């Protein structure tokens, strides 16, 4: 009994696969010549015969279809976690030039274009973003993550913590002498 069931299952599975595979095979190998972008039907018919042409500036003569080099396979770029919800990485890359006024000041603080004030003091007497900027400079100067925790603005807080992390890691990177 068992010896009969197995081939039946196998045949059924084969039929099932063939059913699902058919459109794939058809699509891949037996495509009908449907609407195409054939050039022959396009540019004006009075186009003259090709005139003498040289190789385009960089068109490699080996760059003929069929001679393509094997390329390194890659996967799609995973979306990166963006630390900025308002200021994007691109804004930092463009040195905040797309902003003016307070937004530019904010962008400069978030992206690090504003020089850290190492003599900062009296942050508790300030309000709003000015207080956050002050705490950021203080936290970075003292390398104290706890000071960053008191910052209200999430972007400024991230900049504060990331900078301390960066300074800590970089301070010790130079002393490595790791085995070669």
């Amino acid at each position: 009994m068992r010896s009969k069931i197995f081939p039946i299952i196998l045949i059924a599975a084969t039929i099932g696969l063939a059913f699902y595979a058919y459109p794939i095979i058809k699509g891949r190998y037996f495509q009908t010549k449907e609407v195409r972008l054939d050039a022959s039907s396009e540019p004006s018919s009075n186009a003259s015969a090709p005139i003498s042409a040289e190789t385009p500036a960089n068109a490699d003569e080996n760059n003929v279809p069929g001679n393509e080099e094997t390329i390194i396979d890659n996967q799609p770029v995973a979306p990166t976690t963006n630390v900025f919800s308002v200021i994007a990485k691109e804004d930092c890359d463009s040195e905040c030039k797309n902003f003016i006024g307070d937004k530019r000041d904010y962008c400069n603080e978030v992206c690090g274009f504003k020089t850290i004030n190492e003599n900062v003091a009296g942050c508790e007497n300030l309000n709003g973003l000015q207080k956050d900027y002050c705490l950021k400079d203080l936290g970075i100067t003292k390398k104290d993550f706890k000071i960053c925790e008191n910052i209200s603005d999430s972007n400024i807080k991230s900049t504060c913590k990331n900078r301390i992390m960066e300074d800590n890691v970089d301070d010790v990177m130079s002393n490595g002498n790791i085995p070669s």
Partner: protein
Amino acid sequence: MAKILKLSSVFLAFFFFYFLGTAHASAAGYAYKGIAFYAFENNSATGTLPVYKFYSASRGDYSYTISESAKAKLIADPKKIYAYKGIAFYTYNNNSVANTLPVYQFWSSSRQDYYYTISESTKAKLIADPKKLYAYKGIAFYAYNDNSIANTLPVYQFWNASIQDYYYTISEDEKDKLMFATYGKEISVGLWSYSKNDLSSDAFQIEANKDYEIKDNTGKVLAKIAGNSLTKVKYAGNYKLRIYNSISDILVDREVQFESSDGNNLNLIFNVHRPNSTYDEYRGKIKLRYSDTSQKIWVINLLPLEQYVWGIGEITGTGDEDYNRTMTTAFRTYAYWKILYSTKYATEGFKVDGTPNNQIYRGYEWELAYPRIKDAAIYTQGKIAKYGSDIALSPYSSWTDGRTRSFEERWGSTDYPWCQSVKDSYGKNPTMTTSQLFAAGNHMVGISAHGALKLATDYGWDWNKILGYYLHDITIVKTY
């Protein structure tokens, strides 16, 4: 019956492996092939027409047409084989404009791919090809084969081996995105800096392995230079840089950039004649930038992250290959974090310092001298350590005293939970005390380099296992 069973099994195995195995092929990227021809980005030139871009998901093919009727036909096609993707660029539909040349269209039915070329010799080769891979379809449109006409821009050609498709774009942004899809995001590396006085007396000198162009800080091309022609730059006062030698003197404000003339910076190598150094050659773009903050002029190297890793001078790659893979993944993770979050050198215009202040980066000559680093980087290409969604930025320490330290224990923050203390008899220094190790700069947080080497060499651990041992609860993620 046995034969039928065997054949059926083979048949089933074929389908499983063939179809499931190729299911993700379309995820692969486009490789840069060069400049196909020159056209216009907009319709400001008299007589130009839009060239429309279409994409067929079922064929994995991008196609282009200048014909309004072909466009209308494709859009109206009830089978919707090609989807309209917008205007690719502008050019002419006849040769009434001087200096334009025909761009020929070819079709490969085996690849289901349209291909375009302005080259007569390529056209001739394809037509003569005995395999008849591509069939000649006619003239698609007319364009230029160089940029001697004002406002023309290169149309770049890319090839996707996985879906067998040629793709064309005039967009610099898109070109960069496609190119960096394989090699990662661009990283800026501060190589060295000049004081204003130093660069007033001594010139910065640069030449390349192929033709390059000089751009100002707005991206405007100032000149195109033959690769072996030496360009010099000096500080000219009032934040101006004077560019000379290969060209007539030009003054630029604060910044000048050198990059490839053909749009491909991946195989561009500059010799920057670095003072007092044996490492003069660097892949990618080179920028000179005056910093208002430090009042220094920095020499900055811009290149994809992966190529940066190839030139890291922290190791020579002579150790066990899994040690090299562990370390190249650590280098890449560190640099990836820097690209996204670094603010330390923002005022100077770069993300990482190429000196021991960060990771030692020695560029192309190091890459050639120690090729096993590149081998390890290729093996681990694009992979970084992550803790959940966080990049597991991890310091690496040369030695420990028998255990690593948690980030919290060393620096007082609980925000970096991947840095936990682990036993490290493998990386324990045989002679130094804990205080001597700290004094020598061994923070003992994160990866223990000697431990990693011993685990790879003596215990046969692979790089994944080593990273997982030193960095708590991480996953290795391929980012490109």
